[in-house]
């Protein structure tokens, strides 16, 4: 028995006899390709080709196809090709391979690149409009649910609300404190480092105070909440949608917005201002530590300067933004969760979209608030 495949070609006049030998199997594919290519020219020249299969020791689909391809090449344009000496246990396979690759579909026409771009542009425009519609629908549904709760306060899902508050509020405190502490410390360090050149080190405290209370405290916390809790909301609601739990809820006569979404969004609206406050304090504390150990400023002086530099207005500007950011995060997270379709990929995609979209909207909202507060002189 041969351990390597062979293909013997014996031309006699216009006829050609091909004798494949040895194992014609997938493991030897590169040799098989070389062999079949090497006889290609001979096959094209001959009027009749005979394939003698008696020497083949092993055959699989791939080997059978390579041989079948040779025979099809030989039998094209009115010439003839035939297999002889096919062993019984290979005949079924050879017969099967005869049937395949008969109807190759025409290749799909290459799409016009310009049209393709236009198509994408149109799709994303329609998609953007749909996003806005969904956002407004969810806002409206939430508003109706809130009215419902105001009419009948007992219908509020208190257990769920407390549980969500615990999850996205209480459990988020350590990470929020850690990150904002570091941010405050970094800002203070940068302030001391760069202001030192102008001898304006003491203004670092003003910068830290105003920046943290007005902008960074709430913004950083909102972004973290969007990443931490918004994604969790989307994934939870998405998997509930996937497993038809939301449909089950509706058929029992319950409104998913009331049962699932309202407690989540309300929890966010309550928790985010609290987290923003805690985060801002942690950032100021971080700034104070850097002031003492890096800037050489005594804690008492830091606090006194802070007292002079900031007013309640700065704090209000920051904390007023928090509930609105929470609302945006909640609505985006929940509506993306409800947009999940049957598959797991869709769940992953929607979760990513939810985080990206809510962080984007939080920053846009922050910009709008900056304009608003500037124009009312706060």
């Amino acid at each position, binding site marked *: 028995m041969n351990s390597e495949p062979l293909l013997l070609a014996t031309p006699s006049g216009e006829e050609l006899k091909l004798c494949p030998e040895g194992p014609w*199997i*997938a493991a030897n594919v590169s040799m098989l*390709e070389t062999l079949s290519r090497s006889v290609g020219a001979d096959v094209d020249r001959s009027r009749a080709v005979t394939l003698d299969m008696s020497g083949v020791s092993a055959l699989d*689909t791939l080997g059978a*196809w390579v041989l079948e391809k040779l025979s099809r090449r030989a039998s094209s344009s009115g010439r003839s090709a035939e297999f002889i000496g096919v062993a019984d*246990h290979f005949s079924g396979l050879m017969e099967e391979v005869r049937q*395949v690759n008969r109807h190759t579909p025409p290749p799909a026409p290459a799409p016009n690149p310009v049209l393709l771009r236009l198509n994408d542009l149109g799709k994303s425009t329609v998609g953007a409009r749909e996003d806005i519609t969904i956002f407004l629908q969810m806002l409206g549904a939430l508003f109706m649910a809130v009215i419902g709760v105001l009419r009948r306060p007992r219908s509020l899902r208190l257990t769920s609300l407390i549980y969500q508050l615990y999850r996205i509020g209480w459990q988020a405190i350590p990470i929020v404190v850690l990150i904002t502490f570091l941010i405050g410390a970094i800002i203070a360090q940068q302030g001391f480092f760069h202001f030192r050149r102008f001898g304006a080190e003491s203004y670092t405290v003003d910068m830290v105070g105003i920046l943290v209370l007005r902008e960074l405290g709430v913004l950083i916390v909102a972004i973290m909440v969007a990443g931490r809790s918004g994604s969790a909301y989307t994934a939870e609601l998405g998997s509930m949608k996937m497993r038809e739990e939301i449909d089950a809820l509706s058929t029992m006569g319950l409104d998913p917005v009331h049962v699932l979404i309202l407690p989540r969004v309300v929890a966010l609206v309550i928790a985010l201002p609290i987290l923003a406050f805690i985060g801002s304090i942690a950032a100021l504390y971080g700034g104070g530590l850097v002031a003492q150990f890096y800037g050489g400023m005594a804690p008492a002086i830091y606090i006194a300067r802070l007292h002079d530099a900031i007013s309640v207005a700065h704090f209000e500007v920051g904390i007023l933004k928090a509930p609105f950011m929470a609302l945006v995060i909640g609505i985006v997270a929940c509506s993306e969760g409800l947009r999940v379709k049957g598959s797991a990929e869709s769940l992953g995609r929607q979760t990513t979209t939810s985080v990206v979209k809510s962080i984007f909207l939080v920053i846009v909202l922050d910009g709008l608030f900056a304009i608003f507060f500037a124009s009312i002189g706060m």
Partner: protein
Amino acid sequence: MGESQEQFAIRVRDLVVGFGRQTVLDHLSLDVRRGEILGLVGASGGGKSVLMRTIIGLIPRQGGTIEVTGRPIGGRTEGAAMTWGILFQQGALFSSLTVRQNIQFPLRENLVLSQELMDEIAIAKLEMVGLRAQDADKYPAELSGGMTKRVALARALALDPPILFLDEPTSGLDPIAAGDFDALIGTLQKTLGLTVFMVTHDLASLTTVCDRVAALADGKIVAIGPMRELLQSEHPWVRAYFHGKRSQMLQHEMR
């Protein structure tokens, strides 16, 4: 040695598999003959899939030996694609690849061959499992349950492995599609000379395509043989399985 190599595709001896304190397979022994279709039945959660996954090396074993085509199986899975093809219950098609790319994947990773030949082989496999060349550019998400199973079968057979493992091949298919799938497996087994190891609950598959049926209960193979022998078995679990109300009804209908 020579005989066992010729006669048996898979030999499992004293296999012990467990998770934590729970023993799922308890000194299990099983021989799968070369060229047969063996059906494996057992209670849900009784270790059928565990046995299959242990043989193919996905679950570590605590004791015993497994020989596949005469060679003992270690923990490695390299080169496994040449030895066996596996049809997972949900198909396990790679969702980011098209049908064509899914079927080509084992070819591409294990062999050196031209793209042209690879395309032809992929279409050939697709047509052998009863799909059309037009389906080659679809993504797994666009396929129906029956088509997914067929594509997964085509991928499992891409390298013409001598052994084919099927994990509940007909679950989730309607009776017509399931019957077609059974017939397909029977045909392919004859054409390609495969050894098929099939985990199933489908009494119709067991009756129509399986040469032998093995019953797994309490971590052991309690009965093995052709379907009619199993129907005679005195083992209480096997009796309950094949002579329960549902089974009786089905067998009655068949007669």
